[in-house]
């Protein structure tokens, strides 16, 4: 049915697509054809009306208009309702659809001439199929299969394919829940038998359909023999024919490549496999301490099989997200039509797979977000035109896997959310207090729309449009261990991100020890484990303004000690002269965690932690380890946020910097020759270096430095800022450095991924600041000025600065900063 929805919406866009039309027609036709023999009158009438309309469309007698599409979609909805009823209680339900049928008939009006003929043909087809095919289940899927099968047999726009599907339909076993109603049940039973044997016989031309019916009637009349026996008795066929037909049956059944499995059964299986994995882990540890050769060999085998089993069981539960995507065009179409908006839906990554239960769980939230986007995000065509956008808005839904998680992104190019109004609203509702509001970043404010109070309280328009029920979205996503985030730019659009674990089953994790506790870090977040000799550690670990940072392959990461952060007890093992760090990654940034010890990686089953521990917000769950101990699973994103926050708080106390804070940045502080201060965002910095003055070589008009096998250009920072003060590299800026025989430099990466060495006068340190407001810049290459540690500091705009670096003229492409990027 979802396919139908999808096809219809596609068809509307591409009305001439005969293939699509054919596929829709077949689907409707099979539903109609089969409900005929099962006596679902309403369904038949309804689909019949729809089918006629489709037939006309297909014959090119009428053109697809929005009205027709509406009618047809309405029919699909009605069919869906009826099918659901049939599935649940075997009846068509009480609803009647005379108006819809009338409407469908009306829609055929434009050129009525051909209709009766079509009708007749279809009717003949139905009779034919009734005569031959006697068993069917009104499952759209099966029907569709058959529809396709029959189409293969008789290609072309043939409508009387009723006789052909018979022989394929015969072999579909009746579903145990197949509707059986009162007096007809007996008859149906016969039909079933007839379907299985009789059908095979008829299709092989061994016996005529009439004879089968005759035999059936005899059975009904009290003949207790089996159908085949009656037929043989009647002399219509030989026993050999029956045996042949029966033998042929399984061969065809084999074509059915899949079976239906109860989801609960799968769920149970998954749980059992998870437990098995745990048990295997425990056994592995026992075996590791044992010298028993046989035990080790068996455990090894068990290990392998368990892993395979787990992989396979997990696979059975994975479903492509296209199942969800197929439903979206219809929603977009209906909602945008209601609202009088023009919206184009783009979906990407439909093949991305997700656990079935999770897929089910995100269905409603995604629908909701989409509706929100359409309703409040995308503006009306007039408004869009006024603001210089195309009349047609775009909603882009993208699914992908990243970091062991499933990501879904729903982006619109609509009006965006006005953060200020959200803030005012939240203040008005008392969700936040003025002091909090002062401190909140743009992103934090936007994410207030996920707060319950803000969403349901008043009409959407009061809150810049968003937020109705967004709290439900968030709750639902969090329930399955996911996160929801929102970002928006006024008049540019809104993006909602959902991040969901691929599966709720086991995950690989690294176990670490700090204090007396064992913690698990999900492998997906892990970047690297590092051990540094205590004596050497000062080279890599720096403490600047009480903010610890760790130099890691040219970048500088915030460093956080688990022991300090969690206020853990216990003395670190004596003589542990090795600093152990785990670098983790989250939300696009990395942090280093200092731990007492690193144990090993294990498969763990995530067990949810009591909601009461949620306020601590540092653990995402607990897990039972192989040795029976319980480990807390660290919530890496939360830790990273905390690292930022903690660093900031320390900094605040230290520098007593006050005032409102909006943007949070880690800055590299630089000192100029005249004591002036500059800063650049640390993200741009690849490495901090100190070079010997004689390392500088000339190449054409350029200064270059050999650096890690590459030739990198060297530019003096002040040279790039020369609007105010020209600094030839032999003079002022160089003097101090030359006297010392060395100079400090920052290796930065330009927008075209080339590395450039910026010579600086002095590197002062690294600070974390929240930038409230920048004083407008006084020269090019500067974003503005701010106060850092009570000193006026210019924030450099590296992008414009680097653009000014003269291009290398006579240098082979391959030599330009090649190796460093990788």
């Amino acid at each position, binding site marked *: 049915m979802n396919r139908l929805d999808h096809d219809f919406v596609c068809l509307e866009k591409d009305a001439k697509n005969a293939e699509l039309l054919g596929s829709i027609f077949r689907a409707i036709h099979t539903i109609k054809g089969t409900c005929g023999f099962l006596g679902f009158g309403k369904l038949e009438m309804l689909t019949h009306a729809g089918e006629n309309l489709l037939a006309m469309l297909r014959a090119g007698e009428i053109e697809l208009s929005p009205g027709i599409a509406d009618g047809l979609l309405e029919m699909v909805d009605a069919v869906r309702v009826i099918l659901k009823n049939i599935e649940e209680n075997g009846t068509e339900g009480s609803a009647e659809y005379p108006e819809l049928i009338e409407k469908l008939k009306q829609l055929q009006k434009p050129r009525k001439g051909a209709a009766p003929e079509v009708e007749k043909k279809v009717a003949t087809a139905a009779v034919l199929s009734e005569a031959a095919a006697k068993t069917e289940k009104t499952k759209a899927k099966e029907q569709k299969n058959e529809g396709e099968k029959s189409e293969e047999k008789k290609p072309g726009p043939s409508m009387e394919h009723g006789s052909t599907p018979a022989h394929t339909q015969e072999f579909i076993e009746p579903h145990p829940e197949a509707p059986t109603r009162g007096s007809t049940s007996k008859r149906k039973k016969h039909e079933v038998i007839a379907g299985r044997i009789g059908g095979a016989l008829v299709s092989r031309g061994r016996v005529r359909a009439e004879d089968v019916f005759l035999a059936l009637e005899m059975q009904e009349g009290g003949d207790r023999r089996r159908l085949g026996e009656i037929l043989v008795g009647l002399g219509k066929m030989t026993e050999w024919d029956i045996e042949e037909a029966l033998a042929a049956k399984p061969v065809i059944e084999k074509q059915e490549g899949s079976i239906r499995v109860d989801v609960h059964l799968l769920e149970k299986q998954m749980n059992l496999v998870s*437990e098995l994995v*745990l048990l295997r882990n425990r056994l592995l540890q026992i075996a590791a301490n044992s010298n028993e050769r046989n035990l080790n060999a068996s455990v090894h085998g068990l290990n392998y099989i368990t892993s395979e089993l787990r992989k396979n069981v997990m696979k059975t539960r994975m479903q492509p997200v296209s199942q969800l995507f197929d439903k979206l065009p219809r929603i977009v179409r209906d909602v945008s039509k209601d609202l009088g908006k023009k919206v184009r839906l783009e979906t990407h990554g439909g093949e991305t797979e997700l656990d079935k239960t999770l897929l089910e769980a995100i269905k409603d939230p995604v629908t909701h977000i989409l509706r929100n986007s359409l309703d409040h995000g995308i503006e009306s065509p007039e408004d869009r035109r006024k603001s210089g956008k195309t009349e047609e808005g775009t909603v882009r839904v993208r699914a992908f896997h990243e970091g062991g998680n499933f990501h879904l992104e729903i982006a619109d190019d609509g009006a965006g959310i006005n953060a200020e109004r959200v803030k005012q609203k939240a203040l008005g509702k008392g969700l936040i207090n003025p002091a909090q509001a002062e401190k909140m970043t743009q992103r934090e404010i936007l994410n207030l729309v996920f707060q319950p109070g803000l969403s349901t309280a008043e009409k959407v328009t009061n809150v810049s449009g968003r937020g109705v029920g967004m709290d439900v979205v968030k709750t639902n996503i969090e329930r399955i261990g996911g996160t929801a985030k929102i970002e928006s730019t006024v008049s540019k659009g809104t993006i909602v991100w959902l991040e969901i674990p691929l599966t709720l089953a086991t995950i690989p994790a690294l176990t670490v020890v700090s*204090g*007396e*506790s064992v913690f698990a870090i999900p492998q997906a977040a892990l970047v690297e484990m590092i051990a540094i000799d205590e004596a050497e550690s000062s080279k890599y670990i720096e403490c600047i303004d009480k903010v610890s940072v760790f130099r890691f392959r040219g970048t500088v990461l915030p460093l956080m000690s688990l022991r300090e952060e*969690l*206020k*853990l*007890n216990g003395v670190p093992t004596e003589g542990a002269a090795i600093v152990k760090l785990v670098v983790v990654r989250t939300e696009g940034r990395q942090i280093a965690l200092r731990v007492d010890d690193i144990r090993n990686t294990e498969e763990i089953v995530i*067990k*949810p*932690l*009591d909601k*009461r*521990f949620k*306020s*601590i917000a*540092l*653990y995402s769950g*607990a897990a*039972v380890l192989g040795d*029976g*101990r*319980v*480990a*807390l699973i660290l919530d890496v994103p939360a830790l990273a946020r905390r690292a930022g926050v903690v660093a900031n708080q320390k900094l605040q106390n230290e520098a007593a910097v006050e005032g409102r804070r909006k943007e949070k940045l880690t800055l590299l502080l630089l000192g100029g020759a005249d004591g002036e201060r500059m800063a650049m965002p640390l993200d741009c910095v690849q490495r901090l270096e100190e070079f010997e003055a004689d390392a500088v070589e000339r190449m054409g008009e350029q200064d270059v430095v050999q650096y890690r096998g590459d030739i990198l250009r060297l530019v003096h920072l002040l040279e790039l800022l020369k609007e105010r003060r020209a600094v030839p590299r032999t003079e002022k800026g160089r003097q101090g450095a030359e006297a010392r025989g060395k100079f400090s430099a920052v290796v930065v990466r330009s927008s075209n991924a080339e590395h450039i060495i910026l010579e600086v006068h002095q590197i002062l340190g690294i600070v974390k600041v929240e930038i409230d407001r920048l004083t407008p810049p006084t020269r090019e290459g500067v974003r503005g000025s701010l106060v850092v540690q009570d000193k006026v500091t210019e924030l450099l705009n590296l992008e414009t600065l680097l653009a000014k670096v003269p291009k290398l003229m006579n240098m082979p492409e391959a030599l330009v900063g090649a190796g460093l990027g990788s």
Partner: protein
Amino acid sequence: MAVTQRYATFYLNGICFGVPIEKVQEVLGYQHITPIPLSSLVLPGIINLRGQILTTIDLKTRLELSADETSGQQMMVVVRTSEGPINLLVDKIGGVLDVDLDLFERPTESLKPAVRAVTSHVCKLEKHLLLVLDTERVIQLSEEIVLAGKPNLAEQQEKVLSP
């Protein structure tokens, strides 16, 4: 014939408490509690009960009873609640008592507020009082209770370590 209700009883600082027997999943000897760093005193940690992770509530802290009288190994009572099984830390396990429903009284005003808040009935038995706990109310930890339970575990252990 008087109607009776069966209670599993346990002691906190010598006071007898009871929980309807059907609410009790099992009684455990002391198990290793995995501490949750930064958690409140009321929630000292989690235990691994045959692969299932159970939250532990330190009942004494929950009822704001003094921890001074704690001696020896505490015991654990796993109770069934609407939120799944929860592990309660108690001093000592009592027996199973059949109590005449006629003996039930409303909790008196004289009880400490923290105790009264989670006590559904009080029974005057021959030798002592039995306070019947409403487990559903016990597991409802408001933000204030969690905060009141602070200082966190680290400081709690310090307290234990430095007499």
